């Protein structure tokens, strides 16, 4: 479990993290979402015990990072931003160092080492210097370091940043597989990641918490939530006719591909009436979709305080 309580960090006049309070429970993958410079990394650094909070505190598995830093650190696996490691060492030397630092006994240390190496598929690079590894491999070494002691709480700062789509997929699978019995906090500014991984989202901007919800709830805030869109190439769909449906609020046509989006009045379901209408008119529709809502639009709306793109 991770808990922050009015967690605050000030650099002189700049408040990087401003009275941030949230809670992540076991089994949850909590996404810390925000634009670059929102304070995600600073918040994580305070939870990891690297920075001291200016005010407030954080708890990892109930251990206060100010009063019991060592206990909190023992319960936590942490991948810092950019996955720093001692580049002059080989993967084996580096992981052995972490095994020793984590105080794992010889047999258990060896067992964990083997398990983590095979889980992250590092067997072939074990004796290669970390400096010469690709970015994706270095990220995997960083992840290996974070999960070596099998921690109940895992905190990953932009775990897939700069990876190619295949590597991203591998890392997400790994996080997914570990999520069941652990508390996982990841920071990201990639919205696709939220869909792929998180079951809860905390959005921060300028160090302040702006939203704490499930991805579905956030999508519900989108004006696209419940809208119906379809492509009807080559047929003059009558916008007028659609507009006359009592449930419809407005209609938009994408100027580029001619895709038509029909927005409902609040609380109305419009998929069925729209479909019925189209059928009655005998119009050819190549494909029709009920929109879940657009996270990017909600994200913009929340973090910039303006209404999302029209």
């Amino acid at each position, binding site marked *: 479990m991770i808990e922050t309580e009015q967690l605050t*960090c*000030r*650099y002189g006049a700049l408040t*990087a993290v401003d009275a941030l309070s949230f809670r992540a429970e076991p089994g949850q993958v909590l996404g810390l979402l925000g634009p670059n410079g929102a304070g995600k990394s600073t918040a994580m*650094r305070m939870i*990891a*015990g*690297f*920075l*001291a909070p*200016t005010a407030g505190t954080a708890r990892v598995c109930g251990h206060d990072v100010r009063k019991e830093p*060592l206990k909190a*650190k*023992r319960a*936590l696996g*942490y991948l*810092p*931003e*950019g996955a*720093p*490691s*001692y*580049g*002059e*060492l080989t993967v084996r*030397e580096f992981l052995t*160092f*972490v095994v*020793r*630092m*984590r*105080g794992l006994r010889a047999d258990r240390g060896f067992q964990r080492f083997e398990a983590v190496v095979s889980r992250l598929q590092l067997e072939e690079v074990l004796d290669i*210097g970390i400096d010469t590894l690709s970015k994706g491999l270095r990220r995997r070494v960083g992840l290996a*370091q974070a999960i070596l002691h099998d921690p109940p709480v895992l905190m990953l700062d932009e775990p897939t940043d700069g990876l190619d789509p295949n590597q991203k997929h591998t890392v997400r699978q790994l996080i997914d597989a570990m999520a069941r019995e652990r508390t996982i906090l990841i920071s990201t500014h990639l919205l696709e990641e939220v869909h792929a991984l998180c079951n809860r989202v905390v959005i921060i901007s300028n160090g302040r918490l702006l939203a704490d919800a499930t991805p579905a709830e956030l999508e519900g805030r989108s004006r696209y939530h419940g809208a119906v869109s379809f492509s009807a190439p080559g047929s003059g769909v009558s916008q007028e006719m659609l507009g006359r449906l009592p449930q419809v609020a407005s209609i938009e046509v994408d100027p580029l591909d001619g895709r038509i989006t029909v927005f409902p009045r609040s609380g109305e379901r419009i998929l069925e009436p729209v479909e019925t209408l189209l059928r009655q008119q005998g119009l050819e529709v190549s494909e029709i979709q009920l929109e879940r809502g657009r996270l990017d639009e909600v994200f913009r709306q929340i973090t910039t305080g303006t209404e999302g793109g029209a």
Partner: protein
Amino acid sequence: MSPISAVTRRELRSFFVTPVAYVFLVIFLVLAGILTFYAGDFYDRGQADLQPFFAMHPWLYLLLVPAVSMRMWAEEIKGGTLELLLSLPLTLAQAMLGKFLAAWLFIGMALLLTFPIWITVNYLGSPDNGVILAGYLGSWLMAGAFLAIGACLSAVTQSQVVAFILTMVVCFLLILAGQPQVMDFLQGSLPRRLLNGLAHLSMLRHFEAIARGVLDLRDLLYFVLSIAAWLAAGVLVLDLKRTP
């Protein structure tokens, strides 16, 4: 295994996979040899002891110890590995001690590798080996004090060059304090008490006392306390850095 020894082992490993260790060893051994025989008049003195050898050590350390200590924290701060290190379960004091011990053991090793000169002097005459042993001990302690200064100043900055220069300047001042020339110069301008205090801070005076074979507890204590104080100051600096 304790986190201190884990840090020490990793540091030593890092020394030896990079050229730092070998460059240091070669330069230290070559310079120690040259200075002893040419500048120190090893043969012409006609005495079977290692005084000229040990007399060069403060000046050798002045140049070489900052080169070892400068990377200690500056590199970790710059490379971002400090964040990794401090998220592992160890205290700042343990991290500092682990790093210091690694560097100190390394310099101890360099000192041990000067054994040929000890064999030489024993072959040429019959020196007092107790005095020589005291000389080695004093030299190692002085290297420790220099290293502790370097460890503290390396935590101050993320630039290794700045760490190197700062360390060299502070060590130079500590060597100079108590030298007759400096004392004469300050005679008029400082009160007598302060002047005496300053003289007692002199690294050279305490080292020379030990190197003469006089093991006075006060001289040993001077080095041990210097090391402890500078390391503690370094821990304080690191802790202050955690609070933005």
